[in-house]
């Protein structure tokens, strides 16, 4: 089983924050990643920015009352994405078959990445990074969807760039406000 990144902000607060320079590099990295995904460069994204041991995870979160103390979802529970590299690769390869009618004409999709907080972990070269996203997706003539959420990443330094080793996505909508989530947050 792949290990989960613990969303423990308290421990993160005690962990060493990255330097201003590294913070800048990470933010620029996220902007580059977003631009690749906006431009439909999915193969470049997978080849250049994703680690072979990726766990790409979007759990199914339930709307729950405060008093409901059932544990948060684990990678063994229901999910919308629960992918390793080979699954992500199939998703990406599908987009290059020339037979994806749902994306022809393609969606216009735009990412805004913000609230980037980066910390060193016990593992040298591995960084825990929190960020928020807003994704605007326009489709067909008049369809427009907005998705907001947070990400918890494990980024691995790879020379002057980074590779994504873990991504846990918390989509704010508990009822997905779109006909599909076939895009990479």
């Amino acid at each position, binding site marked *: 089983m792949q290990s989960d990144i613990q969303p423990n902000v308290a421990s993160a607060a005690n962990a060493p924050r990255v330097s201003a320079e590294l913070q800048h590099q990470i933010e620029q990295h996220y902007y580059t990643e977003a631009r690749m995904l906006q431009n439909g460069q999915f193969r470049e994204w997978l080849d250049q920015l994703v680690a072979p041991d990726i766990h790409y995870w*979007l759990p*199914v979160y*339930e709307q729950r009352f405060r008093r409901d103390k059932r544990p948060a979802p684990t990678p*063994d*529970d*229901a*999910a*919308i*994405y*629960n*992918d390793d590299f080979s*699954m992500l690769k*199939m*998703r990406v*390869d*599908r*987009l290059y*078959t*020339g*037979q*994806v*009618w*749902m994306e022809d004409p393609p969606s216009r999709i735009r990412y805004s990445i913000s609230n980037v907080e980066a910390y060193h972990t016990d593992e040298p070269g591995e960084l825990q990074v929190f960020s928020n996203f807003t994704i605007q997706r326009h489709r*067909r003539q008049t369809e427009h969807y907005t998705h907001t959420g947070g990400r918890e990443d494990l980024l691995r330094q790879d020379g002057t760039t980074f590779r994504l080793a873990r991504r846990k996505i918390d989509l704010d909508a*508990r*009822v*997905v*406000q*779109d*006909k*599909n*989530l*076939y895009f990479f947050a």
Partner: protein
Amino acid sequence: MEQRCHAQVDKKECGLPQVRVESYRGFLYGCFDADAPSLEEYLGEFGWFLDTWMIGAGNGAELLGPPSKSILDCNWKVPAENFVGDAYHVGWTHAAALEVMGGELAELAGNRADMPFDDLGKQFTTRHGHGFGVIHNAATSIHTDRAAYDQFMADQLPKVTKNLGQERANLFNGHWNCTLFPNNSFLYGTNTFKVWHPRGPHQIEVWTWTLVHKDMDPELRKKIQKGAAFSFGTAGTLLADDGENMMTCTYSNRGALTRRGTLQSTMGMNHEGPHPDYPGIVGASFIGETSYRGFYRFYKEILKAEKWDAVRAKDDSWDSTFENRDFWVNNLNTA
């Protein structure tokens, strides 16, 4: 407090409406109509088919949750009809996913294969509009990581044969696309189980669970749950294609001109009829519209019937619209 506010309401008169909740093999269904038939009567002969996996090797099946939920701007009948009988769309709509995922069904990609469709599967429809299509020996074919699942199915098969006989053992090993009328659909084999909740005529809320055999061990359940989300979850490689169709079909058919049209549902008409081995009406090919005709026949019937008694009055004659009564007798004799 209510007294001081001069409340006029007699709370005894204001309870919630009662919902009837009944179980079939552990699957719970609700109904607000006190005059409706019991669940068992409503499922009727279709229970014979459901028992294939709801009993199966003995311990039956259950759902893994929590359900993922999403909004789809389509009429509820579009996904219901898609699941009840639309195997025709598979090769074209899902060409991209089939090509990448491989497996037996990859041959369908792009509708390029010249296959003997009549030998590959069948369609079924019974009283009250329930129906499904089956592709023989293809239960696990949409899963990409399937060795353990294949082994599980092979281990179950002798027990299913012993419990239920050869016909249903064959169905157990098949892939089903199914709708229980009106709005509960599932893909047996691909393990996705859905309810299409109408939110008015032009929108539904989709709830998706994973359907597993109770005898599956925890590791296999996890694998199946992952695989089902990968293909038919909210970001599924196949489901995403369908959502687009369901929405644009609804959108296009709202136009002033398109509303003057009628639904074409004639594929495989008369290549169907009562069958000596199965209940209901059986269509000769899994790519056909036998189960569409069963679904919409009952939709029309129930819209026209003022009371359930009017529906009950047709319990013995409902299938008379399927006119080629001797299709299977003739077909099986020549074979």
